[in-house]
């Protein structure tokens, strides 16, 4: 397998992991919205309500930064990262 194919395989792996986490917090948990709302969440809000106000939104922010850092590591590993910018 060429260096480029390996790089793409890892990139794709990271994509699937990112999309899996995205799926859980944008779709998965809302399948059980009614049940989850009976439970108390952070700061005392009902749990589902908290996810729609803050939880899912905040998790997406963290997820994107996490994804960006992981992808940079992958690019560096294969010598594909850009130099001298930002």
């Amino acid at each position: 397998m060429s260096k480029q194919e390996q790089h793409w395989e890892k990139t794709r792996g990271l994509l699937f992991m990112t999309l899996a986490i995205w799926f859980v917090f944008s779709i998965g948990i809302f399948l059980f919205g009614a049940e989850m709302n009976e439970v108390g969440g952070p700061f005392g809000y009902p749990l589902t309500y908290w996810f729609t106000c803050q939880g899912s939104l905040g998790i997406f922010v963290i997820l994107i930064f996490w994804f960006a850092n992981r992808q940079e590591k992958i690019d560096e590993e294969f010598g594909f990262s850009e130099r001298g910018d930002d």
Partner: protein
Amino acid sequence: MIKGNFIDNLPKVYGIYTGGFLAFIIIMSIAEQMGMTAKTIGICFVAFTVAIYAIIGYLSRTAQADAYYVAGRQVPTVFNGMATAADWMSGASFVAMAGGIYFKGYGYMALLVGWTGGYVLVASLLAPYLRKFGCYTVPDFIGTRYGGNLSRFMAVVVLTVASFTYVTAQINATGTIASVALDIPFQYAVYVGLISILLCSMLGGMRGVTWTQVAQYIVLIIAYLLPVFWISNKMGAGFFPHFMLADEVARIGELEQQYGFVKNAAADLKTVPKGLAGITKAHSAVNATPWAFISLALAMMMGTASLPHVMMRYFTTPSVKAARKSVGWSLFFIFLLYSSAPMLATLSKLSLIDPSLPTGIIGKSIAEVQAIDWYQNWNQANLMFVSDFNGNGTLELNEFFMGGKAVVLATPEIAGLPYVISGLVAAGGMAAAMSTADGLILAIANAISHDVYYKIIDPKAETAKRLVVARVLLVVIGFAGATIAALEIQGILGSVIWAFDFAMSGLFFPLVLGVWWKRANKEGAIAGMFLGLVSGAAYLIWVRSGGSGFLGITQLTFGIFGSAVSLVAMVVVSLMTQAPSAATQKMVDNVRVPAGKSVI
């Protein structure tokens, strides 16, 4: 004037700007104490901020294609994040979102999840790859990746349909705010709004829009957060509302139980002015089926990743790496406003319905409520209404009606904040609507000038001529949008949601598969864009004209149907026709690696 040196000094420049704006707010509040009228304060706020944007737009003027189309590709990550957040958060987000949450609760909050979750798709599936590609516009990517003028032209069509649907709503919003703040009729105010919008973008294109959007973000976020924190503290609800409103949310639930949601007779409801609604849904309970929630969120997420005016912001970063990080910053800046909207809705609702608070009106006598100053003001503005349906002389929960905009516009006054805050909120709403309108008009004009005029009609055109065409188109599209906005056909939010559905119907899969599926070819992409857009539009027309729909797909989520058709058409047609050439496949390989020269 704005070069190298300016980029290095950005934090300082915008730091001074923010300080200046805060000083302006303080000066205005002193002027209010000294007897300046509410109307003058409103005019000062709107005129002062718009003048600043116009100055930035003038200083950013340029005669270079690179600066005009992609701001010279030198916008740092954090500032591009702010610009994207302003580009993204429309007049609707600013003025109507808290109201939507107030009235519809959980079912509406799918929009919060959808309009943020979409950025995960932008960051992981598209933005870095399109940045590496090095295109000027989104159709530029489609046209080069798939080849041929027809694919490029189809992409321009989808972009124009989606963005134009969106932009009329934004021009409408600038007109509404300008007409209230400057006290002129709406039909003229629309054009005042339009001229303010064009002042930002005409001379500097993307460069002008970028630096005004950063300035507009600063105004709109201050205008949104300051009242929320102030109201929360004034009500004694907590000094940091986001973490401290659990008791208030629970209290609203108790009051809902106590009052009950009484259904009004149809004849009674007829007497309520158009556009006003009562509280009929639980505040924090789950009041929508899982599919209703998920389908709306999903449509908004896929639509986010297909809207060209957002995507093109990531063409302006210095590198692929910066494009990825910049998506994170964008969402962070959006999060600041979106996470505050439910808090404002909570504070607004409790302050009105809790009889133990001095501002609470439910349970008071109708005559008493009708004598309150702020009630009279907002009743006159056609945003509040009470009526004694059951004739007991007391105001019940089901006898109180309000317009969605009142949550943002009226709550500061109800809570007893000075009028200077209302002026600030008007400036914030104006900034939100203007920044989005600028991004959208520029996206359409750039696509037509670059992809249709330069790439298809006259590939030999010189830069100077191209930029003249781009500017003429900008004005023409702006006026077309304003003319339609002046007709006042739709409400602000309905047309905004449709834009997402149109964009995802036609563009989501052609964009994503262009990067992630090498086998995707020209024929497939054309079929995907054409059939996706047509089937989505057909579904919308069918449901609007009384059709029953299927699978619970409504007129707000028709993009789910359109994009499914688009995906199937694209895969089937691609596989039935020839694989893309070796050169195209190599181009895709090149896009997938961040290092090296851009593809175009």
